[in-house]
Protein backbone atom coordinates (compact mmCIF):
# COMPACT_ATOMS: atom_id res chain seq x y z
CA UNK A 1 0.00 0.00 0.00
CA UNK A 2 2.86 2.29 0.95
CA UNK A 3 4.54 1.74 -2.39
CA UNK A 4 1.30 2.31 -4.25
CA UNK A 5 0.59 5.60 -2.40
CA UNK A 6 4.10 6.88 -2.98
CA UNK A 7 3.91 5.90 -6.66
CA UNK A 8 0.56 7.71 -6.99
CA UNK A 9 1.94 10.92 -5.48
CA UNK A 10 4.99 10.60 -7.73
CA UNK A 11 2.65 10.39 -10.77
CA UNK A 12 0.73 13.43 -9.44
CA UNK A 13 3.98 15.40 -9.16
CA UNK A 14 4.75 14.36 -12.70
CA UNK A 15 1.28 15.40 -13.93
CA UNK A 16 1.97 19.11 -14.42
CA UNK A 17 5.28 18.82 -16.31
CA UNK A 18 3.90 15.93 -18.36
CA UNK A 19 0.80 17.99 -19.29
CA UNK A 20 2.96 20.98 -20.17
CA UNK A 21 5.15 18.71 -22.29
CA UNK A 22 2.16 17.31 -24.12
CA UNK A 23 0.78 20.80 -24.68
CA UNK A 24 4.15 21.90 -26.05
CA UNK A 25 4.24 18.83 -28.31
CA UNK A 26 0.68 19.60 -29.48
CA UNK A 27 1.71 23.17 -30.21
CA UNK A 28 4.74 21.93 -32.12
CA UNK A 29 2.57 19.53 -34.15
CA UNK A 30 0.02 22.26 -34.76
CA UNK A 31 2.77 24.65 -35.89
CA UNK A 32 4.12 22.18 -38.42
CA UNK A 33 0.60 21.21 -39.47
CA UNK A 34 -0.11 24.88 -40.24
CA UNK A 35 3.27 25.11 -41.97
CA UNK A 36 2.32 22.14 -44.16
CA UNK A 37 -1.07 23.70 -44.97
CA UNK A 38 0.58 26.90 -46.23
CA UNK A 39 -0.45 27.58 -49.80
CA UNK A 40 2.26 26.71 -52.27
CA UNK A 41 0.93 27.60 -55.69
CA UNK A 42 2.27 26.15 -58.90
CA UNK A 43 4.55 28.49 -60.81
CA UNK A 44 3.45 29.64 -64.25
CA UNK A 45 5.82 27.25 -65.99
CA UNK A 46 4.48 24.34 -63.95
CA UNK A 47 0.94 25.16 -65.07
CA UNK A 48 2.04 25.69 -68.69
CA UNK A 49 3.76 22.30 -68.70
CA UNK A 50 0.81 20.61 -67.04
CA UNK A 51 -1.58 22.09 -69.60
CA UNK A 52 0.63 20.88 -72.46
CA UNK A 53 0.17 17.25 -71.42
CA UNK A 54 -2.15 15.31 -73.78
CA UNK A 55 -4.67 14.61 -71.01
CA UNK A 56 -7.71 14.86 -73.28
CA UNK A 57 -6.34 12.29 -75.72
CA UNK A 58 -5.34 9.99 -72.84
CA UNK A 59 -8.83 10.37 -71.33
CA UNK A 60 -10.51 9.51 -74.66
CA UNK A 61 -8.31 6.44 -74.95
CA UNK A 62 -9.14 5.45 -71.36
CA UNK A 63 -12.84 5.91 -72.13
CA UNK A 64 -12.65 3.72 -75.23
CA UNK A 65 -10.73 1.05 -73.35
CA UNK A 66 -13.36 1.03 -70.62
CA UNK A 67 -16.16 0.68 -73.14
CA UNK A 68 -14.85 -2.73 -74.24
CA UNK A 69 -17.03 -5.56 -73.04
CA UNK A 70 -15.29 -7.74 -70.46
CA UNK A 71 -15.81 -11.50 -70.53
CA UNK A 72 -18.23 -12.46 -67.75
CA UNK A 73 -15.63 -14.44 -65.77
CA UNK A 74 -13.32 -11.40 -65.60
CA UNK A 75 -15.94 -8.85 -64.55
CA UNK A 76 -16.08 -9.69 -60.85
CA UNK A 77 -12.30 -9.92 -60.21
CA UNK A 78 -11.44 -6.80 -62.23
CA UNK A 79 -14.25 -4.57 -60.98
CA UNK A 80 -13.62 -5.79 -57.40
CA UNK A 81 -10.15 -4.26 -57.59
CA UNK A 82 -11.70 -0.87 -58.45
CA UNK A 83 -14.32 -1.26 -55.68
CA UNK A 84 -11.56 -2.08 -53.17
CA UNK A 85 -9.17 0.65 -54.35
CA UNK A 86 -11.70 3.49 -54.25
CA UNK A 87 -13.95 2.28 -51.42
CA UNK A 88 -17.18 2.06 -53.45
CA UNK A 89 -20.23 1.16 -51.36
CA UNK A 90 -21.68 -1.69 -53.39
CA UNK A 91 -24.63 -2.20 -51.04
CA UNK A 92 -26.05 1.17 -52.20
CA UNK A 93 -25.88 0.30 -55.90
CA UNK A 94 -29.12 -0.62 -57.61
CA UNK A 95 -27.34 -3.67 -59.03
CA UNK A 96 -24.90 -5.17 -56.55
CA UNK A 97 -23.77 -8.06 -58.73
CA UNK A 98 -20.56 -6.95 -60.46
CA UNK A 99 -21.05 -9.54 -63.21
CA UNK A 100 -23.94 -7.44 -64.49
CA UNK A 101 -21.63 -4.54 -65.49
CA UNK A 102 -20.08 -5.17 -68.90
CA UNK A 103 -17.14 -2.87 -68.17
CA UNK A 104 -15.80 -0.23 -65.77
CA UNK A 105 -17.58 2.52 -67.74
CA UNK A 106 -20.96 1.00 -66.91
CA UNK A 107 -20.03 0.50 -63.27
CA UNK A 108 -18.78 4.09 -63.06
CA UNK A 109 -22.22 5.46 -64.00
CA UNK A 110 -24.12 2.96 -61.83
CA UNK A 111 -27.46 3.94 -60.36
CA UNK A 112 -28.29 3.88 -56.66
CA UNK A 113 -31.20 2.19 -54.92
CA UNK A 114 -34.06 4.65 -54.74
CA UNK A 115 -34.27 4.74 -50.92
CA UNK A 116 -30.60 5.30 -50.06
CA UNK A 117 -30.58 9.06 -50.74
CA UNK A 118 -33.62 10.75 -49.22
CA UNK A 119 -34.04 14.34 -50.44
CA UNK A 120 -34.08 16.94 -47.67
CA UNK A 121 -37.42 18.74 -47.76
CA UNK A 122 -36.67 21.26 -45.02
CA UNK A 123 -33.98 23.18 -46.92
CA UNK A 124 -34.27 24.98 -50.24
CA UNK A 125 -30.86 23.88 -51.55
CA UNK A 126 -29.61 20.28 -51.42
CA UNK A 127 -26.50 18.55 -52.68
CA UNK A 128 -26.66 17.56 -56.36
CA UNK A 129 -24.09 14.78 -55.90
CA UNK A 130 -22.14 12.57 -53.54
CA UNK A 131 -18.76 14.12 -52.85
CA UNK A 132 -16.66 16.39 -50.70
CA UNK A 133 -17.23 20.11 -50.16
CA UNK A 134 -14.10 21.77 -51.51
CA UNK A 135 -15.27 25.25 -50.62
CA UNK A 136 -18.42 27.31 -50.17
CA UNK A 137 -19.37 30.84 -49.26
CA UNK A 138 -19.92 34.25 -50.74
CA UNK A 139 -18.53 35.39 -54.08
CA UNK A 140 -16.76 38.70 -53.48
CA UNK A 141 -15.48 41.16 -56.08
CA UNK A 142 -16.00 38.69 -58.91
CA UNK A 143 -13.55 36.21 -57.41
CA UNK A 144 -14.41 32.68 -56.23
CA UNK A 145 -12.34 30.56 -53.84
CA UNK A 146 -11.69 27.01 -55.11
CA UNK A 147 -10.08 26.14 -51.77
CA UNK A 148 -9.25 28.52 -48.92
CA UNK A 149 -6.95 31.23 -50.27
CA UNK A 150 -6.79 29.95 -53.88
CA UNK A 151 -9.09 31.71 -56.30
CA UNK A 152 -10.49 31.80 -59.83
CA UNK A 153 -12.25 34.54 -61.70
CA UNK A 154 -16.04 34.38 -61.98
CA UNK A 155 -15.90 36.10 -65.35
CA UNK A 156 -13.46 33.50 -66.69
CA UNK A 157 -15.59 30.69 -65.30
CA UNK A 158 -19.02 31.78 -66.54
CA UNK A 159 -17.90 33.89 -69.51
CA UNK A 160 -19.72 37.04 -70.64
CA UNK A 161 -23.17 37.30 -69.12
CA UNK A 162 -25.39 35.64 -71.72
CA UNK A 163 -28.41 37.84 -70.93
CA UNK A 164 -26.35 40.88 -71.92
CA UNK A 165 -24.44 39.44 -74.87
CA UNK A 166 -27.79 38.80 -76.53
CA UNK A 167 -28.10 42.57 -76.67
CA UNK A 168 -24.58 42.94 -78.03
CA UNK A 169 -23.01 44.41 -74.90
CA UNK A 170 -19.31 43.58 -74.59
CA UNK A 171 -18.33 43.25 -70.95
CA UNK A 172 -14.89 41.75 -71.46
CA UNK A 173 -13.21 45.05 -70.66
CA UNK A 174 -14.76 45.07 -67.17
CA UNK A 175 -12.83 44.21 -64.01
CA UNK A 176 -13.87 41.14 -61.99
CA UNK A 177 -15.66 43.40 -59.52
CA UNK A 178 -17.53 45.27 -62.26
CA UNK A 179 -18.44 41.96 -63.87
CA UNK A 180 -20.10 40.73 -60.68
CA UNK A 181 -21.92 44.06 -60.24
CA UNK A 182 -23.32 43.71 -63.77
CA UNK A 183 -24.80 40.28 -63.00
CA UNK A 184 -27.75 42.17 -61.59
CA UNK A 185 -27.97 40.60 -58.13
CA UNK A 186 -30.96 42.20 -56.42
CA UNK A 187 -30.56 44.58 -53.44
CA UNK A 188 -30.58 42.60 -50.20
CA UNK A 189 -29.19 39.58 -52.06
CA UNK A 190 -25.67 38.21 -52.52
CA UNK A 191 -23.90 35.79 -54.81
CA UNK A 192 -22.86 32.48 -53.23
CA UNK A 193 -21.03 29.39 -54.39
CA UNK A 194 -20.51 25.74 -53.46
CA UNK A 195 -17.95 23.35 -54.97
CA UNK A 196 -18.44 19.59 -54.64
CA UNK A 197 -15.61 17.24 -55.60
CA UNK A 198 -16.56 13.71 -56.72
CA UNK A 199 -13.85 11.17 -55.92
CA UNK A 200 -13.34 8.15 -58.25
CA UNK A 201 -15.33 5.78 -56.01
CA UNK A 202 -18.32 8.10 -55.63
CA UNK A 203 -21.68 7.81 -57.34
CA UNK A 204 -21.13 9.76 -60.58
CA UNK A 205 -24.61 10.82 -61.55
CA UNK A 206 -25.87 14.21 -60.43
CA UNK A 207 -29.26 15.69 -59.71
CA UNK A 208 -31.06 19.00 -59.56
CA UNK A 209 -30.14 20.68 -56.26
CA UNK A 210 -33.32 22.77 -56.06
CA UNK A 211 -36.44 23.74 -57.93
CA UNK A 212 -35.27 25.92 -60.81
CA UNK A 213 -35.52 26.45 -64.56
CA UNK A 214 -32.73 26.43 -67.13
CA UNK A 215 -32.59 29.05 -69.82
CA UNK A 216 -29.06 28.73 -71.13
CA UNK A 217 -26.15 26.33 -71.58
CA UNK A 218 -22.54 27.32 -72.19
CA UNK A 219 -19.94 24.68 -73.05
CA UNK A 220 -16.24 25.50 -72.57
CA UNK A 221 -14.19 22.76 -74.29
CA UNK A 222 -11.17 23.34 -72.05
CA UNK A 223 -8.61 20.92 -70.72
CA UNK A 224 -8.88 17.94 -68.41
CA UNK A 225 -6.55 18.66 -65.51
CA UNK A 226 -7.11 16.76 -62.29
CA UNK A 227 -9.60 18.49 -59.97
CA UNK A 228 -8.57 16.59 -56.83
CA UNK A 229 -8.29 18.74 -53.68
CA UNK A 230 -4.47 18.61 -53.87
CA UNK A 231 -4.41 20.04 -57.40
CA UNK A 232 -7.11 22.61 -56.49
CA UNK A 233 -4.73 23.81 -53.73
CA UNK A 234 -1.83 23.95 -56.20
CA UNK A 235 -3.19 25.41 -59.48
CA UNK A 236 -4.74 28.86 -59.22
CA UNK A 237 -7.72 29.27 -61.56
CA UNK A 238 -7.97 25.49 -62.06
CA UNK A 239 -11.69 25.46 -62.90
CA UNK A 240 -11.23 28.07 -65.60
CA UNK A 241 -8.82 25.78 -67.47
CA UNK A 242 -11.00 22.69 -67.49
CA UNK A 243 -13.74 21.53 -69.82
CA UNK A 244 -17.09 22.46 -68.27
CA UNK A 245 -20.75 22.90 -69.04
CA UNK A 246 -22.55 25.76 -67.34
CA UNK A 247 -26.35 25.62 -67.07
CA UNK A 248 -27.86 28.95 -66.01
CA UNK A 249 -31.36 30.03 -65.17
CA UNK A 250 -33.42 31.17 -62.24
CA UNK A 251 -34.70 29.87 -58.91
CA UNK A 252 -36.90 31.41 -56.24
CA UNK A 253 -34.23 34.00 -55.31
CA UNK A 254 -32.98 34.97 -58.79
CA UNK A 255 -29.90 33.81 -60.71
CA UNK A 256 -28.92 30.13 -60.40
CA UNK A 257 -26.26 28.08 -62.18
CA UNK A 258 -24.97 24.54 -62.00
CA UNK A 259 -21.70 23.63 -63.73
CA UNK A 260 -20.33 20.15 -64.39
CA UNK A 261 -16.52 20.35 -64.57
CA UNK A 262 -14.67 17.49 -66.26
CA UNK A 263 -11.43 15.98 -64.96
CA UNK A 264 -8.60 13.74 -66.15
CA UNK A 265 -10.13 10.52 -67.49
CA UNK A 266 -13.63 11.84 -66.71
CA UNK A 267 -14.20 14.28 -69.55
CA UNK A 268 -17.39 12.86 -70.92
CA UNK A 269 -20.37 14.74 -69.50
CA UNK A 270 -23.89 13.70 -70.37
CA UNK A 271 -26.91 15.88 -69.58
CA UNK A 272 -30.24 14.09 -69.96
CA UNK A 273 -32.20 17.14 -71.16
CA UNK A 274 -29.53 18.25 -73.64
CA UNK A 275 -28.83 15.55 -76.21
CA UNK A 276 -26.89 17.89 -78.51
CA UNK A 277 -24.11 18.30 -75.96
CA UNK A 278 -20.89 16.42 -76.72
CA UNK A 279 -17.77 16.81 -74.61
CA UNK A 280 -14.10 15.82 -74.81
CA UNK A 281 -14.05 16.15 -78.59
CA UNK A 282 -10.77 15.67 -80.40
CA UNK A 283 -10.87 19.09 -82.08
CA UNK A 284 -8.52 21.50 -80.27
CA UNK A 285 -10.04 24.87 -79.36
CA UNK A 286 -8.18 27.99 -78.15
CA UNK A 287 -8.44 28.71 -74.41
CA UNK A 288 -11.61 30.61 -73.53
CA UNK A 289 -13.65 29.34 -76.51
CA UNK A 290 -17.25 28.54 -75.64
CA UNK A 291 -20.45 27.43 -77.35
CA UNK A 292 -23.84 28.75 -76.32
CA UNK A 293 -27.28 27.28 -76.50
CA UNK A 294 -30.40 29.08 -75.32
CA UNK A 295 -33.54 27.21 -74.33
CA UNK A 296 -36.40 29.28 -75.73
CA UNK A 297 -38.71 27.22 -73.55
CA UNK A 298 -36.99 27.11 -70.14
CA UNK A 299 -36.65 23.58 -68.76
CA UNK A 300 -37.98 23.20 -65.22
CA UNK A 301 -36.38 20.88 -62.70
CA UNK A 302 -37.55 19.73 -59.31
CA UNK A 303 -35.26 19.18 -56.36
CA UNK A 304 -33.56 15.76 -56.60
CA UNK A 305 -34.55 15.13 -60.22
CA UNK A 306 -31.92 13.27 -62.27
CA UNK A 307 -29.85 15.78 -64.25
CA UNK A 308 -26.77 14.16 -65.78
CA UNK A 309 -23.73 11.93 -65.37
CA UNK A 310 -19.95 11.92 -65.63
CA UNK A 311 -18.40 9.17 -67.73
CA UNK A 312 -14.93 7.80 -68.23
CA UNK A 313 -13.46 9.18 -71.41
Amino acid at each position, binding site marked *: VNTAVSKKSRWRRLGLPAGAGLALYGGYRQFFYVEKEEIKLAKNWHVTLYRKMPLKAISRLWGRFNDLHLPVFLRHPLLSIYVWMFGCNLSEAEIEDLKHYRNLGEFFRRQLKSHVRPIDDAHSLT*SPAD*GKILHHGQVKNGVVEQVKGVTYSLRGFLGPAWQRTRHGEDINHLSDKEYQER*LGVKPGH*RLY*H*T*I*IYLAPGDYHRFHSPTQWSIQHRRHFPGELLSVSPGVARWVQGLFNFNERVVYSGTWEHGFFSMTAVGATNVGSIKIYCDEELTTNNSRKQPHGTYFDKSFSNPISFNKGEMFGEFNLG
Partner: protein
Amino acid sequence: STIVLIFEAPNDFDFKIENSKKIKFGEAVGT
Protein backbone atom coordinates in the same frame (compact mmCIF):
# COMPACT_ATOMS: atom_id res chain seq x y z
CA SER B 1 -15.07 15.60 -61.55
CA THR B 2 -16.68 18.53 -59.83
CA ILE B 3 -20.03 20.29 -59.58
CA VAL B 4 -20.00 24.04 -59.00
CA LEU B 5 -23.13 25.91 -57.91
CA ILE B 6 -23.20 29.70 -58.22
CA PHE B 7 -26.40 31.36 -57.14
CA GLU B 8 -28.10 34.46 -55.88
CA ALA B 9 -29.79 34.34 -52.48
CA PRO B 10 -30.83 36.70 -49.70
CA ASN B 11 -28.15 38.14 -47.36
CA ASP B 12 -29.20 35.76 -44.61
CA PHE B 13 -28.76 32.60 -46.67
CA ASP B 14 -27.62 29.97 -44.19
CA PHE B 15 -25.20 27.23 -45.31
CA LYS B 16 -25.53 23.87 -43.55
CA ILE B 17 -22.24 22.47 -44.84
CA GLU B 18 -18.57 22.57 -43.86
CA ASN B 19 -15.53 22.69 -46.12
CA SER B 20 -13.68 19.37 -46.57
CA LYS B 21 -16.66 17.37 -45.26
CA LYS B 22 -18.31 14.59 -47.23
CA ILE B 23 -21.84 15.14 -48.45
CA LYS B 24 -24.37 12.84 -50.07
CA PHE B 25 -26.74 13.71 -52.85
CA GLY B 26 -30.02 15.04 -51.37
CA GLU B 27 -28.51 16.30 -48.10
CA ALA B 28 -29.06 19.94 -47.10
CA VAL B 29 -26.65 22.56 -48.46
CA GLY B 30 -28.47 25.63 -47.18
CA THR B 31 -31.69 27.51 -46.77
